[in-house]
């Protein structure tokens, strides 16, 4: 077969044909070269990391699923626009830090040595605190040799961590605000409830902090009499003494600041000792599938404030997308979805180039972009961002009803 330009019989026609063909050929060549240029690797690498081992394994699984789902959606809708007008596709990686501080630090150093431009994680507060500690404290502080890599946290929720470093940002709910609102609402809804008694997991930073620094003072401020608290440890198996104390306290509201395992243990013991308070309040983290899996019957009616429930179309869509990737959307992993969407906007506005030689500049640009944010789009409504890098998120109150979490009250409506 003869290649090349067609040579028709008629000389004149052939001449024109020749020119048209050449023109077409050149155009085709030019177009293909343009496509090749655009297809040059401009991937925006977002590195997720969290716990995929131990009792918190489900958190890592969910965050990874959500990040993959979000990346897929963003890429399907045309990727992210980069500073020079070209388009970048998002690529997500996920590393397991096993909820261990040293490993978390190794993971972030490893991520920082690749061309990832932002990190999403960690899961555990006891990893987040040391991790933020090795970041550069104040940006542009030449005397501070800390790592310069932006981290946007989805899950680690212990209060006040983002202010440790200018490179640390969090999209976690503000428990102080949520419980303040919850107790005030409970006051108006159930005026006959006057007393509160607490149950607290003492040896886990988050649950301990939340009872003493959030639930207790907020309920007191809302006008309740706090009668005291019962304590146990993260892996305790015997709650007879603690529930006996609860029984004696005869409080109207029992607030349990503990994670699913001990929450279920305590609830089952309460059922045995016939302790039935008017209202049961739980810890934010326990508004997940784990609690319902362990003790749906005993947890019936427990009220928990949460920053995620599939009450809006966007939230439902995110939940479905996560499920399609093998994870579930709860207040922690849904935060990762919001983070991905926020990062897309920040990347587009901050002038990120996503080239191998612009990695440091890109990271700085993202950090500055995140720091400058006053507001971000959340699944339940607008999220306010504070100067410290924390988030003030819209929330709803859910309760356990027939083995599922249902919305009890939406304070935003």
């Amino acid at each position, binding site marked *: 077969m003869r290649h090349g330009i067609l040579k028709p019989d008629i000389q004149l026609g052939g001449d024109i044909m020749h020119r048209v063909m050449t023109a077409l050929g050149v155009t085709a060549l030019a177009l293909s070269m343009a496509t090749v240029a655009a297809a040059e690797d401009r991937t925006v690498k977002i590195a997720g990391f969290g716990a995929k*081992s131990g009792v918190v394994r489900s958190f890592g699984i969910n965050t990874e699923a959500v990040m993959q789902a979000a990346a897929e959606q963003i890429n399907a809708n045309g990727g992210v626009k980069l500073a020079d007008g070209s388009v970048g596709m998002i690529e997500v990686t996920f590393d397991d830090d096993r909820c261990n501080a040293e490993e978390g*630090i*190794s993971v972030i*150093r490893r991520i920082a040595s690749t061309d990832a431009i932002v990190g999403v994680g960690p899961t555990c507060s*006891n990893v987040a605190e040391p991790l933020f*500690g*090795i970041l550069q*404290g104040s940006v542009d502080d030449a005397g501070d*040799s800390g790592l310069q890599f932006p981290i946007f946290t989805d899950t680690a929720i212990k209060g006040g961590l983002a202010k440790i470093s200018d490179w640390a940002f969090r999209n976690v709910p503000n428990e102080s605000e949520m419980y303040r609102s919850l107790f005030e609402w409970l006051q108006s809804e159930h005026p006959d409830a006057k007393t509160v008694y607490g149950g607290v997991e003492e*040896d886990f930073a988050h649950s301990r902090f939340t009872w003493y620094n959030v639930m207790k003072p907020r309920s007191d401020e809302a006008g309740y009499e706090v009668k005291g608290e019962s304590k146990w440890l993260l892996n305790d198996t015997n709650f007879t003494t603690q529930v006996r104390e609860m029984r004696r306290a005869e409080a109207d509201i029992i607030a349990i600041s503990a994670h699913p395992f001990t929450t279920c243990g305590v609830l089952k013991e309460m059922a045995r000792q016939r302790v039935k308070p008017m209202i049961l309040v739980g810890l934010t983290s326990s508004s997940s599938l784990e609690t319902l899996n362990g003790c749906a019957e005993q947890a019936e009616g427990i009220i928990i404030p949460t920053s995620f429930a599939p009450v809006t179309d966007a939230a439902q869509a995110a939940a479905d997308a996560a499920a399609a990737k093998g994870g579930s959307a709860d207040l922690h992993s849904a935060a990762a979805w919001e983070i991905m969407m926020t990062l897309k906007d920040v990347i587009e506005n901050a002038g990120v180039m996503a080239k191998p030689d612009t990695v440091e500049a890109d990271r700085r640009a993202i950090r500055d972009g995140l720091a400058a944010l006053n507001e971000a789009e959340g699944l339940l409504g607008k999220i306010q961002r504070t100067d410290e890098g924390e988030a003030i998120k819209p929330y709803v109150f859910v309760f356990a009803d027939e083995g599922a979490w249902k919305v009890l009250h939406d304070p935003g409506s």
Partner: protein
Amino acid sequence: MDFYYGMAQLIGVHTLLGLSAYVVLLTGQVSMAQAGFFAIGAYLGGMLTVLSDWHIVPAMLLAAVATALVAAIVGFPALRVKGLMLVVATLAFGEAVRLFWFNFDYQVAKGDIQVGPLGGEGFKQIRFFPENGWTTGEVALFIWFWVVLVMLALWWMDRSRAGAVLRAVGEDELAAQSVGINLTSVKVAAMGAGGFIAGLGGAIYAHYTTHIEHSNFGVVLATFAIAYPILGGLSNVLGTLIAVIFIQGVLVEALRFLGDWRNLLFGALIVLAMNVRPDGLFDARVTRLLKRLLGFKADA
């Protein structure tokens, strides 16, 4: 490069942890208390630099000395307990130390914030390194200076009479006694030395993670502490180092690409290693080989 410096730091600190158990293991005592001593070094070292504004070197040395004293005191009742009962007793002691720090509050106001250990919430903002502009590479060098020092000291001790005495006690106590070795002083000295090394390592640990809490120093760390010298073999300090590199470098980091399988392989490979090389990766045969290669006279 930062990542490799970070790995070097981690391997260095864990080598110190392993060596603290190694020196005690030489006398035949399996001590699960090293994580507890590590914790004492960490909290004391951190408190000295954060609350009293000390430089890290005097802080870690004082912390190490204090830890050595505590360890020596523990050494005395440990004499009454033999073999596997000692494992449990030291495990319990280590847990008791962890629980002590769990209950320990000592906060001091610095400017407008409170600093210091706060029981269950831990001890945060131990930022001597970043605040003084130490780069990751400098910290790694600093850590390895001490690791090499300790390794050289132990190596030198092993080639001297002290090493022979320690190992004699480890091999057969009755025979050692019958040649006039004072069991009490040897065992307590070994405990003290182990405590010193653990205290040193712990103080460094607190500073390179910047935040410590009681749960860092539990049974898992205590198990790692004895895993390193057992896996590495007791004939040589290098064994412990190799084991740390094997566990932290290979099993934890290098196998990351295996994703979820990494965690399953972790336990399985340890079982395999102990079945295949029950004397450790660096056993007596390898030591002899190494000595011959390096030109030392091969001992019997």
